[in-house]
């Protein structure tokens, strides 16, 4: 494995510099220089992030705005809007005005994006509906189950998520457990696999814990005396939930929505396994642009579009939770 590594000369120099910087830092610390600034401790990390996060993102932007020869172009984005853009251009060039009759807009890219957003929206909604009560009951002081349940929600994640998703196949497929059970009872089998429903199930299954944790964290930190006070002042259970608990849990809900929505727009493994290729999602599309078609420029444009969409939706969500109080997994 080590022998496979072939680097250009300047990458070695760069790596050498990083290493020197790191060693120098440690040496300075060890020399007990009282005047040394602690903020320098972040230097190796800053360098690392610029090299391996900022630079790669800039590369995506570079490829999105250039053609195969490296010249500036917006064609990749036109390609997103009209997937027949290249062939239409040829038709119009060859046939001139007459070609207009043969030109049709290829909608596959836009359709896939809309479909992915719709699926992700449904997935987030289902996770919220299923996850909110779960988080609420977990945080219930009288049940005293909280921390044990958190662990119980984490444990499934130790099983490789691809295998867990594949395991759903053995439950859902035509000869699978659910259908065998139905047939044993005398019912007809149902087609459960290879449709949007199966993909949705897989997504909810994989992302549900990401909705439960942040809501639980916020509810658990909430001062329980507030709901007691509400009850003393004459609220019934539902009113307390609706007027006190729910508004206070908004940061957790926002954080949960973010953590479910983002991975579900971009997932490409789940639709491939459970959708069996009938349900192309945006992640699929990007992956196939890069690895099947080898078209980095259009692929980068699609990635950039997705990044921008996600950044916009995040900033809208942030407005609702300006202090960023919604906890993460930890």
């Amino acid at each position, binding site marked *: 494995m080590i022998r496979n590594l072939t680097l250009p000369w300047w990458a070695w120099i760069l790596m050498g510099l990083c290493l020197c910087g790191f060693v120098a830092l440690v040496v300075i*610390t060890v020399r007990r220089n009282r005047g040394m600034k602690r903020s320098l401790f972040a230097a190796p990390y800053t360098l690392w992030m610029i090299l391996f996060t900022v630079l790669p993102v800039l590369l995506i932007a570079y490829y999105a705005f250039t053609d195969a020869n490296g010249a500036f172009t917006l064609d990749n984005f036109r390609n997103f809007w009209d997937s027949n853009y290249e062939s239409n251009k040829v038709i119009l060039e060859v046939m001139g005005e007459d070609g207009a009759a043969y030109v049709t807009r290829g909608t596959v890219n836009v359709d896939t994006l809309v479909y992915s957003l719709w699926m992700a929206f449904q997935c987030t909604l289902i996770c919220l509906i299923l996850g909110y009560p779960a988080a609420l009951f977990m945080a219930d002081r009288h049940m005293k189950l909280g921390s044990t349940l958190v662990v119980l929600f984490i444990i499934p994640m130790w099983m490789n998520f691809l295998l867990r998703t594949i395991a759903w196949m053995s*439950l859902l497929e035509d000869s699978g457990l659910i259908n065998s059970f139905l047939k044993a009872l005398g019912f007809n089998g149902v087609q459960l696999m290879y449709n949007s429903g199966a993909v949705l199930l897989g997504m909810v299954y994989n992302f549900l814990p990401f909705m439960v944790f942040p809501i639980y964290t916020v509810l658990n930190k909430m001062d329980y005396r507030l709901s007691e006070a509400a009850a003393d002042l004459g609220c019934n259970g539902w009113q307390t939930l609706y007027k006190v608990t729910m508004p206070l849990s908004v940061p957790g809900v926002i954080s949960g929505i973010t953590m479910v929505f983002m991975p579900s727009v971009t997932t490409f493994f789940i639709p491939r396994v459970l959708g069996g290729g009938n349900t192309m999602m945006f992640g699929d599309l990007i992956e196939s642009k*890069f690895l099947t078609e080898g078209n980095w420029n259009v692929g980068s444009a699609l990635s950039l579009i997705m990044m921008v969409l996600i950044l916009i939706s995040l900033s809208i969500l942030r407005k609702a939770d300006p202090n960023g109080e919604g906890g993460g997994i930890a």
Partner: protein
Amino acid sequence: MKNFFKRFYLAIILIFLYVPILVLIVQSFNAGRSRAKWEGFSLRWYGELFTDTRILNALYVTVSIALLAMVISTVLGTLAAIGIHAMKKRPQAFMMTLTNLPNTMPDIVTGISLMLLFLFTKVSRGYWTMLLAHITFDVPYVILSVLPKLKQMNKHTYEAALDLGATPTYALTRVLIPQCKSGIITGAMLAFTLSLDDFTISYFTTTPLVQNLSTLIYSAARRGIEPTLNALSALMFVSLLLLLLIVNRRTAEKT
């Protein structure tokens, strides 16, 4: 009655989460190759596991990368958190944006952007590029778990240590780091788990020549998963569970 309903609901959700895992474990004891048909109990796949070099190699890659990425990102992240904490407001805000940036990027974009970087710089993808990618997505999580602990700390403690004659190194190792130990441990655990379970970023930053378990499973998924993979993940699952129980017992004894 009310409590019964709550417990019932939570039980249903948990069953939903555990059913596929149960199916996997049962399948790993199936004598036959078929996913659907039960052909009798057997340990055949557990035996074959230890002779399958592809799987053992993938296991080695997965675990070694998870451990290395955990150690490196914990050191890098803890130092960075201490540094960021000591910064003035402006640079601190900049560093926090930089730290939150990977969280706002979908995995597939992170993976593809790193793939582009490696292809652009003509670095051949494999073990080391995958390790690099894993460190990159782990470090922010370490920082985000250590920083809150530093913020909770009384900021004069460190200065007091210096005034009382401690060298900065001594104050660092005896005052600062012990204070945020729990955050460091959480960060390290998070880094290890994330790295162990990652598929998307690994998929783009390595080639079929060097595979971890996730990418191996992905490439096997089209042909149908070999039951040996089920056996392996059942083993890993049970050992992690045992580890958790032991750690739990230990901490329970201490308190």
